[in-house]
């Protein structure tokens, strides 16, 4: 492994990528700062969710025990964690390998996993709505629907971004611009994984054990 100057936290492209590695410094650092800002939004939605627990906030409506399906949440967790693994494989391939295929194949798998995750999540929401447990039912459910779908919207944005990137790889190949964007999309994708671990622990596990 060649030694090179690390330009930013996380996976660096390395100096064998030339100009892309130099440009990554400000771009990726900027994206880290953006993620910090986004993390505050999630943090506050988590805090709101935590304060809106219990009979007062449930307002006589259903609570976690009646609503959450741990099996489905666990499947979603596995899907999302696996998608993070496959994105990681794509990033490593981008850094170490020649050719487009070793990058594109895991990215397509990532996209598939992400969309499947969204499918499971939407199915869960639909089930809740069908029971009359929508955000209009109680403050608790408002906090739930403020937090979990916010993550889902982020995953949706990530999937759209991923599709755009696949199109850009098709048009430009792995140009510097594309590589720099994939670096940032990777950070975004792993970030969403971390948020999901928070949701799984605080919303689903704590909700069902509490």
């Amino acid at each position: 492994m060649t030694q090179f100057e690390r330009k930013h936290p996380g996976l660096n492209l390395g100096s064998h990528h030339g100009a892309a590695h130099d440009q990554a410094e400000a771009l990726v650092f900027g994206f880290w700062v953006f993620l910090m800002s986004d993390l505050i939004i999630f943090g506050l939605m988590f805090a709101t969710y935590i304060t809106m627990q219990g009979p007062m906030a449930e307002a006589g409506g259903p609570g976690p025990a009646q609503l959450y399906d741990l099996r489905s949440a666990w499947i979603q967790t596995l899907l999302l964690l696996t998608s993070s693994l496959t994105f990681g494989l794509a990033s490593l391939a981008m850094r170490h390998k020649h050719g487009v295929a070793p990058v594109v194949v895991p990215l397509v798998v990532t996209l598939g996993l992400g969309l499947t995750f969204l499918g499971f999540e939407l199915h869960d929401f639909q089930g809740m709505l069908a029971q009359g447990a929508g955000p209009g039912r109680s403050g608790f459910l408002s906090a739930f629907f403020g937090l979990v779908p916010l993550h889902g919207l982020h995953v949706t944005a990530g999937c759209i971004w991923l599709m755009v990137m696949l199109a850009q790889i098709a048009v430009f190949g792995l140009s510097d611009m594309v590589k720099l964007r994939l670096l940032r999309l990777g950070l975004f994708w792993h970030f969403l994984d971390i948020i999901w671990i928070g949701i799984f622990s605080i919303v689903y596990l704590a909700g069902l054990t509490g």
Partner: protein
Amino acid sequence: MTPDTILPMIFGRIGLDSLPFVPAILNPSTSEFIAAGAAGVVFLGAFIVLGVVTWFGWWGPLWRDWLTSTDHKRIGIMYIVLALVMMARGVIEGALMRVQQGVGLDGGFLSDGHFSELFSTHGTIMIFFVAMPFISGVINYVMPLQIGARDVSFPVLNQISLALTAVGAALIMISLILGKFSTGGWPAYPPYTGLAFNPGPGPDYWIWSVGIAGLGSTLSGINFAVTIYKERAPGMTLFRMPLFTWTVLCTAIIMVFAMPPLTVATATLALDRYLDFHFYTNDLGGNMMNYVNLFWLFGHPEVYLLILPAYGIFSEVIATYSGKRLYGYMSLVVATMSISVLSFTVWLHHFFTMGQSANVNIAFGIASMFIAVPTGVKVYDWMATMYRGRIRFSVPMVYATGFLMLFVIGGLTGVMLANPTISFQVHNTLFLVAHFHNVIIPGVLFGLLAGYHYWFPKAFGFRLNTRWGYITAVLWIVGFCVTFFPLYVLGLMGMPRRSVSFTDPSFEPLTLIAMGGAMLVLMALSSLMIQLWISVRDRATAQVPLGDPWNGRTLEWSIPSPPPEYNFAVIPQVWSRDAFAADKEAGIAYQEPETYDAIAVPSNTSIGMVVCIGGVLLGLGMVWYMWWLAAVSFLGIVGAFIVRSFQTDTHRIIPAAQVARDHRVWLAQIAASPEVTRAQECSPANRGRAMNERPEPSL
């Protein structure tokens, strides 16, 4: 389908009575006439601007040189123009409220709803669309120059931030013409601003204008922070940065962390209003205290976000006009950092009376008092900078003097209010109104006006008129004192804030004095405009193309005025603090480099205008329930971003020969120009090459 079903699908809930002219005809009263008149002014103003631009054929240059520009300097100027336009409205609204309370014994001429709208728009405008864009503008213009950079890290993002701010400002202006703005004050507390109590479009205008502009500020913060971390010239270590840049760094960090709570507060309030959520409703388990916490988790850091750059401006101004390096640089940096950390620990003092236990209140009260410590350090540092300096009592120094004296008073009343027991007595009275105006006007506004005066010649190549500058500054200072000091007394007498009228005749003398003060402030605003007009008219006698009219100390003065679009022909090498002053001292300023390189600058893009127009339509669609419009404009914006992401050619190259030619012409002018002394600073002889005069050596 009948027209009754089709029209609401197209126009949502806009009706004929949404236009302010209609109620003025149907239900004539002074209050309605004022509303209709304001709408008329907006119409007329827009019409005149469009007419003038068309008449002079300025659409082309406006589009090419400004609206699609990614140059941080032009974006900075556009921010400040936006701020000044909005300030005109905000000041007039403030004066109108003072007049209403001046004659408000048992009545007055405004309806209570109209008065509530006025204090809501006044607060929202002054914070989000005057202070914020003015500060973003000054930061945008000055900060990259101070650190020896060619632009901010993300020029296109910068343009988008401006666009988002402009969307918010446009929505709040449109609310004068179409419908009514919120009556819920600038923090817009639910449940009052919830759907149950306020079904109209007012709170929705607030949500979308503040929410969208807030996103712009978050992105600005990211941009500024990354620029300072990554784009500094070689040798410009963190502790060699000018103090203004330090305050910008702290402000940027606050923006990154304090704007998200605002986004959450506005978004959740919107969910309550649009999708039947129950975050803050009275029924079904809503908890409005969550909103209050979220809002002030943004709102308190926000005031430090505003004041820190003003501290930075005063640091530059006082050092330059005292002819000395800043006293206590390290302590100022540490104080700035301490304030930005503490700013996140005091939000609860905005609602001591809202039900926490006494111990919680005490903790936040003590934290609030702590902020006075680093602020006090700063005040002493500024005074020590002046001590034994060779002070020129220029216009920015008049503002600085007004600031030092008045701001200390405002700060001390803040320490009083930080005490929960006192807060219980005077909260929700005019004492509070006097306090925050006393920190924001002498602090933020005077700072910005001092900066405007100080850096104007850098941006436009000519100095502002000094005589009108003094008149304006004195009018602001006196006007402020006469308007707001009576409010302290009124507050202690028990007059509640936000009252359209009152019944206690003992309030009347002081409300009348405050009204007189408001007239002085209006004169100050007019005088500011007159100054600009006269300065532009007489610009031939105030040219400073050589770039250093004030014997400046930092890098922005080492380049021509106005600077070329790439700022620095060659990126400067920095050896010490106050880089340009040190170069002048050592006699190595204005040197010709051995070689010039070609410079890549970001090319123009219309993405900002797409965001701006799309954002306004999106906001209008949401406010008026025109869902098709909201959907189309949202998808349009997303689509524009995707299309742009396929564009690969985003830079333009300026050839080395052109850079060399321009730089050599300027260097030749420098060599041919005599240095002017401090005595000639305000005379036509000052063409921007100030003599490097030092303070008297201390004995």
